[in-house]
């Protein structure tokens, strides 16, 4: 990489024979294109102008950094700026604009400096093969063999085998130590807090629901009445149980319902209750189309027909939404006849 290196590459350093060279290079390498002078190389005024440009960018960057500090203290943190329909936090915006422009101008100045004023003659550096030379390889082989022989690793089989065994067994505690990452699944995925006689309550107002509260076509997000008290004891348990027990209650005109065999008495006057947790990957399904009784999961668009046992109409889900058998208690409120008869939510291996 001397200063004289801006010369055509020496031809003939190829290891092909002459014929092959001619064939592989039908046009001879003319060498690096001649260096073209920039306006800043020729005209000192242009060079001075470029210098001023760079210095202006750097100076502005400095001022903007100061501006960022001023903005930090001067602008209230809840001030809002508006541009027509758009609005934003004034403190955030002023700080970001000052900082962003300061950073940008430092970069732009440096690049301008490099492009206009720094020497721009291309230089050449030679490459070397990535691999080692045969001598170096021979050296390392010899060194390794000497080392191996001196250690006796190959010869003393007892040491070798016991060491390999010891190292392998060391992996066991490394794995075993992770055992307490989580409890055994047990029957947790099979059970929810729904049980016989648990009232169905609106999941926002927590009010129990009477059949007369629902008109045909209406869908209500609901929860078991015994969910809310759990929140007092443990927020975690509350979230975990909610993630399984959330249901939808829907009222469909009885003549439009096709009841799967064995579920004839699971509804109350066309009121049906299904798990809200998608059987695909567990998103809460939420988009209900009244006219078709279809409910759609917004995550992957699995579509279930609530009038037909919530069977899958479209999308990647494989199983219908589990149905909760409903009844009416003595006071006329909707209650569960029992818990779910199958696990809710996404599939799992042991589910069967």
């Amino acid at each position, binding site marked *: 990489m001397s200063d004289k290196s801006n010369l055509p590459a020496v031809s003939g350093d190829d290891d092909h024979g002459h014929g092959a060279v001619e064939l592989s290079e039908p*046009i001879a390498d003319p*060498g690096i294109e001649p260096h073209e002078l920039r306006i800043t190389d020729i005209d000192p005024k242009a060079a001075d102008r470029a210098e001023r440009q760079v210095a202006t960018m750097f100076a502005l960057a400095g001022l903007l950094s100061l501006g960022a500090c001023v903005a*930090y203290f001067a602008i209230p943190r809840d001030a809002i700026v508006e541009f027509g329909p758009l609005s934003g936090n004034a403190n955030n915006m002023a700080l970001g604009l000052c900082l962003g422009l300061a950073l940008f101008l430092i970069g732009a100045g440096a690049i301008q400096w*490099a492009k206009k004023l720094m020497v721009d003659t291309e230089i050449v550096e030679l*490459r070397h093969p990535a691999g080692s030379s045969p001598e170096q390889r021979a050296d390392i082989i010899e060194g390794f063999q000497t080392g191996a022989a001196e250690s006796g690793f190959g010869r003393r089989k007892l040491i070798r085998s016991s060491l390999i065994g010891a190292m392998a067994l060391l992996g066991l505690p490394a794995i075993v130590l992770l055992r307490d990452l989580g409890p055994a699944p047990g029957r947790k995925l099979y059970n929810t807090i729904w049980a016989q006689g648990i009232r169905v309550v609106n999941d926002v107002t927590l009010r129990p629901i009477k059949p007369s509260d629902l008109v045909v076509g209406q869908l209500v997000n609901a929860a078991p009445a015994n969910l809310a008290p759990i929140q007092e004891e443990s927020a975690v348990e509350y979230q975990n149980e909610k993630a399984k027990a959330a249901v939808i209650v829907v009222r469909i005109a009885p003549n439009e319902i096709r009841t799967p065999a064995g579920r004839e008495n699971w509804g109350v006057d066309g009121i049906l209750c299904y798990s809200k947790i998608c059987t695909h990957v567990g998103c809460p399904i939420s988009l209900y189309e009244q006219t078709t009784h279809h409910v759609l999961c917004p*995550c992957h668009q699995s579509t279930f027909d609530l009038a037909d046992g919530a069977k899958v109409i479209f999308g990647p889900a494989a199983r219908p939404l589990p149905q909760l058998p409903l009844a009416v208690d003595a006071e006329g409120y909707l209650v569960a006849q029992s818990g779910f008869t199958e696990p809710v939510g996404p599939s799992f291996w042991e*589910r069967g």
Partner: protein
Amino acid sequence: MATKELPPPVAWVDDRLGIAKLGKKNLRKVFPDHWSFMLGEIALYSFIILLLTGVFLTFWFKPSMAEIEYQGSYSLLKGLHMSEAYASTLDISFDVRGGLLMRQIHHWAAILFVASMMVHLLRIFFTGAFRKPRELNWVIGFGMLFLGIIEGFLGYGLPDDLLSGTGLRITQGMIQASPVIGTWLSFFIFGGEFPGDDMVSRFFTVHVLLIPGLILALVTAHLILVVYHKHTQYPGPGRTEKNVVGYPLMPVYMAKAGGFFFVVFGITALMGALLQINPVWLYGPYNPAEVTAGSQPDWYMGWLEGSVRLMPGFESEFWGVTLSWNLLIPALIVPPAFVTLVALYPFIEQWITGDKREHHLLDRPRNMPTRTGIGAAFITFYGLLWIGGGNDLIATHFGVSLNSVTWFLRFAVFFGPVLAFWVTRRIAISLQRADNDRLLHGLETGVIMRSPDGEYTERHAPISPYEAYELTARDRILPLEVGPETDENGVRAPRRGLTKFRAALSRFYFADSVQKPTAAEIEQAHAHGHGHDDHEELGHSGEVPGVTGTVETDDETAREQISKH
């Protein structure tokens, strides 16, 4: 340089670290110049920006799922129960000055990080920069892309808002559906049932310590290898496999690359200032019974989302167990198979072409039509899955049926890549022919000449020797040969079937590729041109005997010519 003493502080360091020896090699190290070499730089710089802004965020973020009542300054959520993680994210957004800016820069930089790695990977792919000796650096780079995507997804999950919780729920559902170990794995990762109260603190440690540490180690290895191998360069006059032509690190690249870091940082800061991203306060705290319609993950998860959305609902139940093909295939088989194929591509191509040489000159994509076609097929597959991840948005924005969009994509992911492959390959071959035309006949000037006989021809101007050299500075294409059935002793060659298969792949790989013209052909074409005042184009191919530049050279002829020379 005249003999000169190092300044005392530098001499002090050199006495202990020998930095002069290191610097001598690297201070004036030459890097070639091309805009496409900046893509990897963007990835590196956005990673640094992520480290800087990330440290800032950790000062206020509380990675805890303990439930508290929000009492910060965002009045719409005041009094609501939420996790400390979500509340502290709100505090960063509303109560810490510059906090929202840093959060938004962090998120934009994360998006840019993955995007620039991916575009950088495409540049490496289409120019063949992954060839020997750089295969391992391709794998390292690929590892960073993979880690970067996981890192981004974990970061997206930390605020514990409704959107991120939905993303984690989907992930948990996929883990739970894995065969054999799914249930246990899910319980171990989430510390029990979903959502539990462990995930944010666990993901936080992985997000701020484990994965950044791994990426940092890989970045270091990646850069050391770039320095060791020296940068690849595009073919051109004076550029050979044995040199590198460009500008020195000191001062040109210190200024250009150093300046570019500030430019990238500046632009992400401006984005953080002006473009809102992930406004978690609008989503509310995570609630496992709620979801927003039109939920979308960050862009780089879109293709996985699409893969899951497009899969029909297949599931098998047998021997008392459940096998969820609807998740197994799109989440646990297709994506890993896809990324493994990409990661191993350098080795696959090398096996097919039988090319064991070192390459430092890059390929122009047109000169490797099959590779370019394969790249286009991969992009198409990825792109179609990505579109699938937004099938609901496409349906609502274009007023088409969601089901039709999904059904179309279910077929398109199979046919689209094949179509893209063939079209791209043909375009590349046409461009090769255009190059050869330019080389043999020169530039079309648009000047139409009429000869005394009344014949019309277009005048062609010769191209510069520099350009002519650039167009021919590529390898002559030679598919792998099967070799003789038996060696000289009559012993059958081993693994004959595999060799034949490999040779067939190699023929396919180079099929229809256009050879660059030989010196004789160029001479002939030029001599032919000199005969007239202007270059005759009409009826030309009939007049030149033998293989002409514009006609594809088949393997046979190429070999014949090589053996003749």
